[in-house]
Every structure is written in C-alpha cells, then in structure tokens.
C-alpha cells in the first residue's frame, strides 16, 4: 500500500516536472539534480500540543510534530535549501511573488525560499490572531500582528539571509525564510530529491542549507544543456 502510494507520488512528480520542462525549454541551459540524505540518527520530532489554541488543534486529526529535522524514506532529508551560492551572475527579482501561509497554527511551507527583493505575501488562514516575527539579523527585524481575516502582509527582503520566523502567541510555530541572491534554488522534497533547472553552463558552488546542521558546499561544472547529479549527506545527531 505504502509503496504503491510512493510509486504514484513519483509518477505525479515525474509527470509534473516533465510538464515544467515542456513549458519552458531553455535552450542550452542545464539542470542540477540530486538527493539530500542523512547518516546517523536524527532527533525524533516531538508532537505539538495545540490545546491552548482549540481552533488550530481541531484542524489536525493527529498532532503535528516539530519540523527542525524532517526525514523521509531511505534516509531522505526534507526542507533542505539547495542553491547556487557562487558563480551565478545574479538575477533581478521575478515579477511573481511568493506566498507564505499560517494554517492550523503551522507555517506552510516550513521553509520558504525567495529571491532578494521578491514580493512576499503572508496570509493568515486561521480563525485566530498570529504575530509574524521574522528574527532577521542582517535585514531589519519587524514584528506584526495579523488577526483572523486580515488582509495579507506584503513585504520583501533586500539582503540575502536565512531568517527564522516565529509567532510569539503560538510558541510552537517555527519556520524559515531563505532569502537568496540567486534565481537557481530548490528545496528538497520528502524523498530528499531536488532539481535546479534552467542553469546556464558554468562553474558553480552549490550550497545545501539545513536549519539545524552546518551548511555544505560542492563545486559543479556544468556544460551547456547538461544535467548533473550531485548528492548531499548531512551527519545527523540524535538531539
């Protein structure tokens, strides 16, 4: 049953990624793909007690867990941001923005990558107030209240930084903004896979960032239209 589900999931991923490729054929541009895994024993994620916020607790049939180290089948590591940290010519912010949701007293997605200067919209889909408090150090820190039914908060970041996001009212809420200087990035899926598309030929440093472990880098030389596979492995500690 489980394997069938994953086969189906894989099929869906394959079909959708094929569609993406078909939609924009970048002549001569390559792809960097691979998988993020861990060795060792990762910490056990703790179930979150939302009883203090009944409107959120009832949205989850089974309690959700903390998300600092989320693993998948085959030692896969989810929510790892893989991006070109050096060698990229830099990119202006795309016209389209990114969306960050507060739903069921959780941040969706847990890790949200975006480009410097890109529009960021933060929605409150809950029947309760949240305060969005991104703990920026390089960018300026701010803290805004967003009661239920408020319009989205419209903002952006001007400097690259990994910013922890928290809600002081619901202390279990925890997420990250990954503000990047490049348009070439991906976040690893639950099976640890990632795919950075539309990369021009060149020599690049690829960094994999995980919120709890030290970032890792690898050098990649990509030919025109080439698809290169690189893998990252993080050493997991049980705490």
């Amino acid at each position: 049953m489980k394997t069938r589900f994953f086969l189906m999931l894989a099929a869906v991923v394959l079909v959708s990624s094929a569609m993406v490729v078909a939609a924009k054929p970048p002549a001569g541009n390559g792809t960097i793909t691979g998988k993020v895994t861990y060795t060792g024993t990762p910490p056990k994620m703790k179930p979150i007690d939302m009883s203090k916020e009944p409107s959120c607790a009832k949205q989850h049939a089974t309690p959700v867990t903390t998300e600092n180290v989320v693993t998948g089948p085959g030692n896969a590591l989810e929510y790892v941001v893989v991006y070109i940290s050096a060698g990229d010519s830099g990119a202006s912010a795309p016209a389209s923005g990114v969306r960050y949701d507060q739903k069921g007293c959780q941040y969706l997605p847990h890790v949200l990558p975006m480009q410097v200067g890109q529009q960021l919209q933060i929605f409150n889909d809950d029947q309760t107030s949240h305060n969005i408090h991104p703990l920026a150090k390089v960018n300026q820190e701010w803290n805004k209240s967003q009661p239920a039914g408020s319009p989205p908060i419209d903002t952006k970041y001007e400097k690259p930084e990994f910013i922890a996001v928290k809600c002081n009212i619901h202390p279990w809420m925890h997420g990250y903004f990954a503000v990047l200087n490049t348009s070439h990035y991906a976040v690893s899926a639950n099976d640890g896979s990632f795919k950075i598309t539309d990369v021009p030929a060149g020599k690049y440093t690829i960094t994999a960032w995980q919120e709890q472990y030290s970032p890792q880098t690898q050098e990649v030389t990509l030919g025109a239209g080439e698809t290169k596979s690189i893998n990252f492995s993080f050493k997991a500690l049980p705490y």
Partner: protein
Amino acid sequence: MRKLASAIASMLPVVVLLFFTTASPCYAQIDHHLTPVNTSAEAKIDGLTGHASGEQQGGLMLYRRFCVGCHGPAGDGTGENALWIDPKPRDFTLAVFKCRSTPTGTLPTDDDLYKSVTRGFDTTNMPAWRPLTDQQRANLVAAVKSFSPRWLNEKAGTPITIPAETPINIESVLRGRALFQKMECWKCHGPAGHGDGPSASTLTDSKDNPIRPYNFSTGTRFKCGETNHDLYQIFMTGLDGTPMPSFADSLKPEDAWDLVHFLRTLQPLNTQEASLWKAYAAAHKSEIKPIGPDAGSGGSK
C-alpha cells in the same frame, strides 16, 4: 643541596613580590577601549546636534564614562554588569529599538533615542539621564548610533501619524474591551491584564532571553512613556526585538484610541477611563462577559 634550598628561600620574597606586582593590576584591566563602527555619527534633536566623537563633549567619551559598564565597549550589550541585569542592556550593534515613533522594522528617529536616554526605562536597570545636559544626551544619541553600520546606510523611518485622541467615554472603553479580546492581547497580557496569559510563560526576546509581558495591574509607567499618546504609539509601532507586535496593519486609528481607553482601566490609577469603567461595571455586573478563551466574541459587543 642545602645551598640551593637556601638560595630558593632567599629568592622567595622576590618571587612573591614579583607575583603581586604583576598580578595585582589585573582587577583594573577590563578593556574599555571602545570599538564603534562609525565615529562620525551625528544626531539632530530639536536644534541640538550631537556628535559621536569630539573634543570636549564627545558622545563616545560620555559613553565610556556612563554607559560602557552595561552596554559594553562594542555597544553590543555585553558590559561587565550585563550578566546581572534583566532585561539585558540593549545591543546597539543590531540597531533594533523598542521605543520608536516609526513603523516596525525601521530605524528610530534621533528624537526617539533622545527621549529614551532622557526618560530611562521603568522596571529595568536603565536610569533616566536627566542629570546630563541636553547637549550631552544629544551626544550620547550620536554615540549609540556609532555602533551599527545600519546608521550609515539607512535612514530613520517616517514617524507614524497619530490623529487627535477620540473622546473618552464608556462606549469607547467598551469597544476597546472587545478589541482586547478580538486582537487576542489577553493571550500574553492575561484576561485582566496581569501579564499572565496562556502564552506569557513561553515568551522570549529576539536574543532568546525570557521576557515578561507588561502587567497592567502594577500601574508602573510603560517603558516607552506614560501618556495615552505614548500608549497608542507602543502598540501601533510594536516594541521591536520583543514579542510585542505592531498592530498598525490591523487596527484603525479610532479603534486604537478605543483600545488605549480600555487599557487604562486595567491599571490601578485614578484615570477618567478607570472611573467610567468602575461605574459601568457596578451597574452592569451581569452583562459583562469575561475576557479570555471562553468569551466567544468577547467584550460587551
């Protein structure tokens, strides 16, 4: 052998003396060498111009005299007294400040910093610096600005507009009470404003130090002033670096004034708002719904 022993014995006083002469100055060796990133920082306050560096009145010299003990030589809030202080001294290298007239996420104006230095922070170790002259305080503001590169590259935010206060009456207080429920102020500040809401015990500031929400029942001055105007400014700008968010995007100005009027009833002070509420509460005891998780829509609305 004996000769050697006596030689050592005769040298003993010298060794002891050497030990004391080299070791004794250590207690005075705390390095107060300041490390600002921008010694040409200036502050302009009401016709005064403060300078971070300067001959006679230099802000950094005053800083070294009065501030370094807590805020540290680098302005990062790690002075020698910092360990024993709670809440911790401000880290000027981050340029994140609680008391601002400017929106959340922006730098405060020179005037905001000047007021903070002058006023001090009630319920903390930061005293009021009124004994210093206006010029000296202006220089200190320039010194504070010398520790973060943000002041080189960014401008202070535009102060928020605070419209004239709406009339104080019981309707306004009741509307404010409904907002206290709706905006979920009670989650931290507690249903009766005692600073004991369900999230209160989990709160930390941006440096992960535990921090308490304001307890209205103490009646102490707010950190950022004592007037209704100051109170309005506190929740419409937020106290950056703390869990207190800005409500500028979610409260209309007239609503904000209603909330101000209600918050005054939580303090044990003889304010107009408090006496209005007392009279209302005595006459309408059965109608008042509790604030908190069981209140439903909350307040009297």
